[in-house]
């Protein structure tokens, strides 16, 4: 696709804006009523993973960069936030901030090395880096190895919001999720996002127009790491622990699956996908390793026959962008 066409196609029409406003209102309404119908702990967990998937989607959906090691950002922020809250005695918002700072720093270093390669090379490099971070977390003393960091205090956010109250915690997590979601949406719809999409469609042309493609990709990578870190740090406060699972390869795979099922390159796809995958894990937990097999089958089926995902398919049928 040529550059002008791609930018024009990516522009939201007034109809798209209306549809998006309605979709957002529905999502907020669902979050508001969900705790009356579902187990609130489950909804909070789903929101954390949905935000994580939105961060991953920012790269694959709008920059065509497939990161297969995104758990490193989610996990490192989870560990640092848990350590900050428990050992340094930080209040929750500061603990989340330190966690996010750690994932931003990690995102900058790994991103600077990885974005010079594209496609499958990029994917392999992210796998290797996340494995390195995993081994670091196994060895480093503050992560407590196999035990992880347990009994993380929830504390009082900013000194007066008592997060040990489950209803207040729910509102807090919902606020973090909606904030992160809107940041991703804003970034994609901004001039920065348009240039990112232009680079995705035709990198040499974007470069010849004077855009520094590498810097834009690095910025997208760091932003994605930051949002993934925000999700991971919040998750540490919700489930009150940080463990090797957060930084493991299977978590990296799950976030890919969520985005693929929901629809890559759509705003609401990762959210829907995260809900489905988390629900699948919860309801199928009694089947043990069969969950892994089912996840694999869903992967293969999506790639072969359902590449647009649920939201992508709906949006294509209705001819709107969601």
């Amino acid at each position, binding site marked *: 696709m040529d550059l002008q066409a791609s930018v024009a196609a990516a522009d939201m029409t007034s109809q798209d804006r209306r549809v998006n406003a309605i979709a957002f209102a529905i999502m907020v309404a669902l979050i508001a009523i969900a705790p009356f119908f579902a187990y609130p702990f489950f909804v909070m967990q789903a929101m954390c993973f949905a935000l994580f998937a939105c961060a991953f989607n920012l790269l694959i959906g709008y920059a065509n960069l497939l990161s297969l090691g995104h758990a490193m950002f989610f996990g490192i922020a989870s560990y640092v936030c848990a350590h900050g809250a428990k050992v340094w005695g930080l209040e929750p918002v500061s603990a989340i901030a330190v966690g996010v700072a750690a994932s931003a720093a990690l995102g900058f270093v790994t991103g600077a090395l990885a974005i010079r390669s594209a496609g499958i090379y990029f*994917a392999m490099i992210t796998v*290797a880096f996340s494995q390195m971070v995993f*081994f670091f977390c196994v060895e480093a003393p503050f992560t407590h190895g196999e035990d992880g960091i347990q009994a993380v205090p929830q504390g009082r956010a900013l000194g007066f919001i008592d997060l040990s109250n489950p209803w207040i915690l729910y509102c807090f997590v919902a606020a973090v999720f909606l904030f992160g979601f809107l940041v991703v949406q804003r970034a994609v719809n901004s001039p920065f996002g348009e240039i990112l999409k232009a680079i995705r469609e035709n990198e040499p042309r974007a470069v010849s127009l004077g855009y520094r493609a590498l810097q834009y990709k690095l910025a997208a990578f760091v932003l994605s790491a930051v949002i993934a870190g925000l999700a991971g740090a919040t998750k540490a406060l919700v489930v009150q622990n940080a463990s090797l699972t957060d930084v493991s390869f299977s978590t990296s795979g799950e976030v890919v699956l969520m985005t693929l099922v929901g629809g890559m390159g759509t705003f609401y796809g990762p959210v829907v996908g995260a809900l489905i995958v988390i629900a699948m894990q919860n309801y199928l937990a009694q089947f043990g390793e069969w969950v892994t097999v089912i996840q694999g*089958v869903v992967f293969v089926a999506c*790639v072969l026959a359902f590449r647009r995902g649920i939201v992508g398919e709906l949006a294509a049928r209705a001819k709107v962008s969601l």
Partner: protein
Amino acid sequence: MNIFGHMISMPQLYGQLLIGLINGSFYALLSLGLAVIFGMLTIVNFAHGAFYMMGAFAAYFLLQYAGLNYWFALILAPLIVGAIGAIVERLFLKRLAGFDPLYSLLLTFGLALIIQGLFQNYYGASGMPYAIPKQLSGAYNLGFMFLPVYRGWVILASAVVCFATWLIIEKTRLGAYLRAATENPTMVRAFGINVPRMVTLTYGFGVALAAFAGVLAAPINQVRPGMGADIIAVVFAVVVIGGMGSILGSIVTGFVLGVVEGLTKVFYPEASNTVVFVIMAIVLLIRPTGLFGRAA
């Protein structure tokens, strides 16, 4: 010898060097398989670790249920697993030929989950022993150390198979067809060569190399469902360091990095798990296309 505050004994040094060479043999075979597949299909086979594990399990099944010993397994396991690979290519990967290679990567990723999940279901996470064949038990006394015969055999067998693969691809007529089809498949098809069949067989061959490594590993590392997932990230790092374009590069890098890892275990054990990834970061900084790779 005293380096970095560690007291190093020579037997320990030789021992780790040997373990490094053994791991290097597996890295070389696996990254060679990935390179062969990449050269022909331009995809990364994420299921490579799973096929390596299947090779070890095939050896175990052949012994357990068919009474066929190690030597039969060494031939049959790669054939069986390679045939499964060829079927996977025909059934699934072929359908994704016109799409972004990232989709094939995701497909093989899903396959790896299925295979590993299935084996974990039936065999749990623990390992099953596989005895060293009696012809290869015992050890040589090399004067400065004892070399277990089986370990020497693994290094030798891996080196021979790697070299033979390189020879086939670079020096034979079949290899010339392969290389030509990599450059321009349409033109090669116009000459009357069945390129789709060649693609299927190439994928099967790459998978067979992984299974061969799995059989070699069975007596050393036990037969475990998780053995493939443990090694695949390191193999990816090896491929990135060596550069995807080069057959010889992937072999050399595999052996060298195995040795480097072994030496790190002696001099700075805390970093032995991460040293390969650190080297990858340095190589990416200096030569983003890898040591032996060509610029894209």
